């Protein structure tokens, strides 16, 4: 699996608490990749948990709306994950005030999110950290769920899960109340918050602390009654935070269509078991109603790249057609173009890979 000389690190793109992300490319194909180098030395007790989770779950998931883990290799004491390179995330797009969202754009993003999430849930994996920051956007506009550092599979009956997951603003009330037994509904709440954020262009439920988060939620959606959410008062960390009246969503989302608000309210239901599932959400009339979701290639994109391109890439043999923000899907002629400009030695390698791909395609198609 490890084939180190096949990749060239190019530039540091970002640094997290437990990993550094580099941009690189596969030498053989010229495809841009992100290399996530996980700092192992720092941790006395071996690998960081989130790295293990990320590898464990991403290896099993392959879907257009989930980030693809291409390879894992180790160099020296480090563990390296090779991921698809995606140049922006939804948070950057939401914050870029020069972009305008049409209702169809929001619909398209949410549909892609639900599709990716449904795939995770179908494979019994909870993401547990959905937020605009973790929804990456490919150059062709496809949205991909990333960062499976907090993901886990569905718990067996009776097994506890931690409630300290999901970024606070996107955390559902049952986790804030300390529930240790929960299900896919926690991710749906996050998607609801993201949908609201896409419309408002600012985080919908932005609490300053966990306590304040509950208050913020109740202020926005009203304090739940025992009828609305049976048993919530018995949850481990339950504390009454005061009574707030229910205000209709329409008051805040004045421009949203009725279907949008219907889906939003179903994602933000207090009782987790009644909350809409990803599969049901994909069949919600919101997605079927006019306007149709925007074609991914037409979605607004960040004009600014994350970092300036290094010089050698411009005169190197990397194809310029594949990744520029203005270029839409490169499709099949991508490989053709590449063969023309790569050196003869690489050419043979690229050809062998292409032939292999063709072979699998033929085998699959009938």
């Amino acid at each position, binding site marked *: 699996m490890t084939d180190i000389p096949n990749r060239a690190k190019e530039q540091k793109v970002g640094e997290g608490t437990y990993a550094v992300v580099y941009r690189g490319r596969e030498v053989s194909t010229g495809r841009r990749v992100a290399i996530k180098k996980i700092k192992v030395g720092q941790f006395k007790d071996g690998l960081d948990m989130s790295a293990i989770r990320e590898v464990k779950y991403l290896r099993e998931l392959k879907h257009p709306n989930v980030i693809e883990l291409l390879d894992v290799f180790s160099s020296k004491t480090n563990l390296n994950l090779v991921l698809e390179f995606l140049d922006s995330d939804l948070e950057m797009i939401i914050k870029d005030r020069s972009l*305008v969202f049409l209702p169809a754009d929001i619909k398209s993003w949410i549909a892609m999110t639900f*599709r990716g999430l449904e795939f995770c849930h*179908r494979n019994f994996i909870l993401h547990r950290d959905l937020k605009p920051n973790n929804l990456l956007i490919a150059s062709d506009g496809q949205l991909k769920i990333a960062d499976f550092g907090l993901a886990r599979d569905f718990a067996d009956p009776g097994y506890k899960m931690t409630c300290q997951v999901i970024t606070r603003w996107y955390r559902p009330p049952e986790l804030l109340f300390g529930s240790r037994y929960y299900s896919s509904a926690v991710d749906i709440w996050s998607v609801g918050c993201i949908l609201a954020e896409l419309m408002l262009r600012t985080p919908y439920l932005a609490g300053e602390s966990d306590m304040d988060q509950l208050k913020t939620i109740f202020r926005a959606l009203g304090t739940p009654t025992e009828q609305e959410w049976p048993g919530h008062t018995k949850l*481990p960390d339950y504390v009454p935070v005061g009574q707030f009246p229910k205000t209709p969503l329409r008051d805040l989302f004045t421009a949203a269509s009725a279907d949008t608000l219907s889906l939003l309210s179903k994602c933000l239901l207090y009782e*987790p078991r009644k909350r809409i599932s990803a599969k049901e959400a994909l069949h919600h009339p919101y997605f079927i109603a006019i306007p*149709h979701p925007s*074609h991914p290639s037409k979605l607004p994109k960040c004009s600014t790249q994350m970092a300036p391109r290094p010089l050698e890439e411009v005169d190197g043999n990397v194809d310029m057609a594949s990744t520029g923000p203005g270029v839409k899907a490169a499709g099949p002629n991508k490989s053709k173009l590449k063969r023309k400009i790569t050196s003869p030695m690489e050419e043979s390698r690229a050809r062998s890979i292409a032939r292999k791909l063709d*072979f699998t395609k033929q085998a699959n198609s009938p």
Partner: protein
Amino acid sequence: MSTKPNYGWLQGRTVKKGGHASSNSHTRSTTPQIQSTSSTIFGGGIKDPSGRTSEYFSMDDQCPVCKSDRYLNPKLRLLVSTCYHKMCESCIDRLFTLGPAPCPIPNCKVVLRKLAFSPQTFEDLGVEKEVAVRRRIAKEFNKRAEDFDDLRSYNDYLEEVENIAFNLINGIDVEATETRIKAYKAANAALTSLNLQREEAEALALKEQEELERREREARAAQLAQQEQQERDERLREEQELINKLETSQKDAHKIVAKSRSAAAKRSSARAASSNANSGLLGMAFGADYAKLLKTRTNKVNNNVPDEPHVPFQDNYYAYDDLFRLLPGGYNDIFSDAVRKDREGIMRAGGYRVEEAWQRALLSAVAGLDAMPLSGLETESILPANDGDVVMNSV
């Protein structure tokens, strides 16, 4: 009514071409200004967006009733009846002052009233009629695409509206059509008025946006004027300074001139830079900019790839859906016994679903059933999707 028709031509009196000239003063004095009364009497007609009615006017105009034409009566004004026949104002006065009367055109028995005449906008009365009918229909039938569940029903609705308009324009089954309109009106009164409000709101928003843009333009112009004034003042001062310096100092005159020139150049470039920055700020400051962005965005959208309707799943979901079915009553397994009893109710409150665990167990059991066994490395690449229960190749 005080308007007295101009029968000059009937009495054999010659009316000169410039009818309102001195020789014609007699007719004029007895005939009050038509324009003054007409605006109050004859409303309606086709209005352009600014609210004005532009009237069709031709030198060949002739009243089909009295055969008076523009040569005989330069003030001839033809108006259109509700049955789309034109006649001149004097005929209207003559025929309808005493109350409703039938249309004087042969074979048209429609009873007309004086107030129901309207100015003519289009040369062709067919167009006139069509525009009026369509205007009326559009007011009643103002449903929008988003009021319908799917494209098909919207298209059906549009077709129906088109049928009604066609019938009215061409006078086919007018009565039946009218009853159809009435029925529709009764059924959709609420939605119609809602859409009317929406349209008004949109028009208002558009107006506001235009106002905003105008104000921004004005602000920019004022800023520019101010800048120019400043520049002029500065140049004057500089010249004065230079003259003073040349007068008083002992240095070489050439050097002094060169120095002041370079200083001036520096200043002007600094000014240009700051004004650029300013205009950028001004542009981003207001919602007008946002509106502009929205406009370019919608324009861009139109000439690109079409939006496809939503498809819930783009992968082979259903391939795995019919492999098994959960028993509706659930399963009595010992592992989930406590969870199912859920004495404290925390499972339910937290949203835990034991069904998901069962589903997972069942899927794990059956998903690999139809997978071909692997035999050797050669076949591995042929069967990428079938090598496990959880990995699902979805491409």
